[in-house]
């Protein structure tokens, strides 16, 4: 990294910056390809097209990067709660006065552009969480620490759910990674979480009326068998086993009931993954998944070439420049492009973990894990939904998807970390 007179470059992690620009430029190339049609050459400078707008977003991101890198890193630590408070206010504001797009009232109108405070809430929450957990009175084994940390995450998450943007809210579970790393969340909770998630899927995959045969009866049988096999049949053991079995059964029942009460489109998004024949082709959810998979699958090993995608080009795939940008990559660059994209993300995430672990300062480490968690969850859910491993959730692919809020949000998120990391040799001065 070149060191200039402003001394921006000193200590900056070159690989991370490189990966950032690689992803952003690759993203732009694909957005351009999406806009380009055989019968329409949009040129490069028409602001009514997304690839031109994205140039604008990238340019403004550069300005943001400049400001982040030249700012005093200590202010972030100082202002963490204020930023958090401000974002919470913004979230409340959009719930009342925001613009509604696709069922989510989460946009602030700024002339022709729209901004989503939820995109910035991730960054603010990460800062606030880092600030709180690095404070001397936060102790991992204290219940109130766990509660406050949980509340810091849950509050903006709840507001975003109320805005109707379940996808972005889901991303807030990414803080679980940082909380796990800081031992706020114990191992067994993580394991239990994954088990319950697996059970959730299994419950849905089995038709409701068969659940009692495939899940409830085995659970009761295993519980009874466990009790009978115990030599010392203490009342507590029997009681405990019964409670666990009962809770499992309750959970299964709850999943079914919750599922029954989901919005129809949410239900369909889940069910199309589990059952190929759940509803005839043409239903929107099946359609999206179907065409998304066709687009990626038809790319083959090397893809159809830049701007040669057909499925994405002819609008078979929805939201191609935003949430489904990976379809364009998969179709036009084939498995090679998929491999490259996943490789870049994996490398970035490894690097972020490495950055996190090399911090002496707890604040930066927690923040780094939050950033890694957020990017990881975005990446994982986005790719999984385009290739049919996860229900369609409207979240962008970091750095690649079209969109100002998204790009700005991730740029700020990442470059704050880069900035903090560049001062890793200096001791954070605490108030």
């Amino acid at each position, binding site marked *: 990294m070149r060191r200039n007179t402003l001394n921006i470059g000193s200590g900056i992690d070159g690989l991370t910056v490189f990966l950032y620009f690689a992803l952003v430029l690759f993203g732009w190339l694909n957005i351009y390809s999406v806009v380009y*049609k*055989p*019968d329409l050459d949009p040129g490069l400078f028409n602001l009514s097209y997304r690839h031109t707008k994205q140039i604008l977003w990238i340019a403004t991101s550069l300005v943001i990067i400049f400001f982040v890198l030249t700012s005093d890193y200590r202010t972030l630590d100082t202002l963490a709660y204020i930023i958090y408070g401000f974002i919470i206010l913004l979230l409340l504001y959009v719930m009342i006065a925001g613009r509604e797009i696709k069922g989510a009232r989460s946009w602030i109108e700024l002339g022709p552009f729209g901004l989503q405070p939820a995109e910035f809430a991730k960054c603010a929450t990460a800062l606030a969480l880092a600030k709180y957990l690095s404070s001397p009175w936060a102790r991992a084994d204290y219940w109130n620490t766990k509660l406050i940390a949980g509340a810091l995450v849950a509050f903006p998450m709840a507001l975003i759910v109320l805005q109707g943007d379940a996808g972005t809210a889901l991303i807030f579970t990414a803080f679980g*990674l940082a909380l*796990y*790393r800081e*031992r706020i969340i114990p*191992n067994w909770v*993580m394991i239990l979480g994954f088990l319950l998630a697996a059970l959730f899927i299994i419950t849905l995959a089995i038709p409701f009326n068969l659940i009692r045969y495939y899940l409830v009866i085995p659970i009761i049988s295993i519980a009874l068998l466990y009790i009978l096999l115990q030599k010392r049949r203490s009342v507590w053991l029997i009681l405990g086993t019964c409670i666990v079995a009962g809770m499992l059964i309750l959970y299964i029942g709850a999943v079914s009931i919750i599922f029954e009460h989901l919005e129809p489109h949410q239900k369909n998004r889940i069910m199309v993954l589990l059952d190929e024949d759940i509803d005839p082709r043409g239903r929107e959810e099946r359609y999206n998944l179907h*065409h998304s*998979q*066709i*687009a*990626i*699958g*038809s*790319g*083959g*090993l090397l893809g159809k070439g830049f701007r040669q995608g*057909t*499925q994405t*080009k*002819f*609008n*078979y795939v929805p939201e191609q420049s935003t949430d489904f940008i990976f379809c364009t990559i*998969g179709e036009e660059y*084939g*498995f090679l492009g*998929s*491999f490259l994209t*996943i490789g870049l*993300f*994996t490398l970035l*995430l*490894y690097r972020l*973990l490495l950055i996190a*672990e090399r911090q002496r300062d707890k604040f930066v480490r927690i923040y780094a*894990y939050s950033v*890694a968690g957020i990017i*990881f969850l975005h990446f*994982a859910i986005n*790719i*999984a939904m385009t*290739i049919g*491993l996860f229900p369609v959730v409207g979240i962008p692919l970091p750095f690649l998807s079209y969109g100002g809020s998204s790009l700005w949000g991730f740029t700020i998120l990442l470059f704050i970390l880069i900035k903090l990391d560049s001062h890793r040799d200096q001791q954070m001065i605490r108030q």
Partner: protein
Amino acid sequence: MHENRKWAILALISLTSLIFLVKLLSIQVLNDEYKRKADGVSIKTIPIYPHRGVILDRNSKELVVNIPVFDLIVIPAQVRIPDTLALCELLNLEKSEFVEEMGKAMKYSMEKPSTLLKQISRSEFHRIQDRLIDYPGFYPSSRTIRHYPENVMAHALGYIGEISEGAKEQDTSKYYALGDYVGISGIEATYERELRGVKGVRYVWRDNMGREKGKFKEGRYDTASIAGTNLIATVDLEIQKYAEELMQHKKGAIVAIEPATGEVLAMVSAPTYNPNLLTGRSFSQNFGNLLLNENKPLFNRAIRAKYPPGSTFKTVQSLIAQQEGVINRHTVFACNKALVKCHFHPTCDLQHSIQHSCNPYYYRVFRRIVHQNKITMNDSIAQVASDGDLNQGYQTWLDYMDAFNLGRKTGIDLANEIDGYIPEIELYNDRYGEDNWNFSNIYSLGIGQGEVGVLPLQLANLAAIIANRGYYYTPHLIKKIGEQDKRPEFKIKHAVPVDEKHFDLITQGMYDAYKMGTVAYYAIIPGLDLCGKTGTAQNPHGEDHSVFIAFAPRENPKIAIAVTVENAGFGGSWAAPIAALLVDKYLNGEISKPSLDEMVRKKSFVLEPNPVITLNQASNTP
């Protein structure tokens, strides 16, 4: 503890990426199902329809051609209408009609083209086309439909229509797509392969709304269409037209054949219909009307109606009898009206039996044929004592019938031809029991009555055999297929097993029959060198059918003809004049007896006024 958790997180990320790569490897590289699906949805195959071959008559006059029709297409999403009233005026539509049609188009699709106006006339179209530029979203479109400039020969030419689901299933070559036009009857059906040509294909990209988005791979895989082959028919348009005119207000059929080649010069089934009714947009409505009409105008009587041949059958009986040696030129039978009814005429030898059409004569001739001339008690109404084997004799006679192509398909190049009917031995065995039937059960066959049913086409072919003195070519309607000669099966000469010498007397008898025999006096055209035989087919449902077969001139015959007029009585009264007029017209190129022409044209044997015939008069030029 912290270290473990770091690795757990690292493992989670790695595992996720690995799962993605495996899944992507599977759908992108290992599975080409998606590739096929992608092509299936995004590449649209657009057929290019070739020009369907036209059909000309033997003198290269147009029988069927293609004419362009113009439609106005609308793509609702692109429509901008500066002034609706002006547009309605331009299109000659009421505003309400326009709104309704637009509504239909919009309901169908905003993005895909719909037809707003169908079959606009050429002049109208040119007027509209110039001003369409002011109305985005409206496009002219032209396509071709079949057109019959002379409004003739509906049955033989047949018609085309959208292919049915069933016909599409049966087509093993998988050539047709739903909505394709295909020859459904007549020549259009028989020569479908030649006429249709070969469809071309164009591949274009199509987007999610079904809109075209440019050529697939710059049209590398596109193929041009190959135009259909033009056909030259054997028919003489002038004769065909005249024959149809003469058959106005009548039911029946006319088939005229050039004996030397088997080429059909005219084929009429009356009542006929204007073939232009079955083209274009009114097809279904007109087809329905024609189908329901009580006179069955869609029924091609020439190849599908079985009529008893009546006395025309005596020609073939006399030929068989001579060949079998059961009679000779000197054989005389009294006109014994006790055997079978007859009219008043002198006692006949063979030649005169044809001239006067003596029924008892042919009663005995047929009896001799089936009893192999082994009749001991001659000429009696009483039980015939015979040593002959009836089965064997009748089988011999059946073999002759087959050789004369009576009661079986001729193999003409038209679909749907039927066999006709000559009763097999089995029929009588079934009806009376084996060996339990005798001549009295079958005698009426000898004079062309009873169970026998012969097609007008087969009768014409019989006339051609007599004209040729013993051979025929399978009748056919197509002379040339593009640059190629007619189908090979029509160039095979079929001989009948009767010696040429036996035809002399018959020919003379037929010559006399026309000149001074059973033919009505008014039907005699002076100077017309015609040999004919009348027939009156008894019809249990009403007035007898009038039948006449003829050929002319007597030496080197140029035309053989069979005319059947339903419910018109004696063969000599109506069928013979029609045949005479047609032969005269064909040989001499003119109508030398206008009084007869006028009389025939005016005569009607259709009790109910026939709307189809009325329609036929009206010019129908789209």
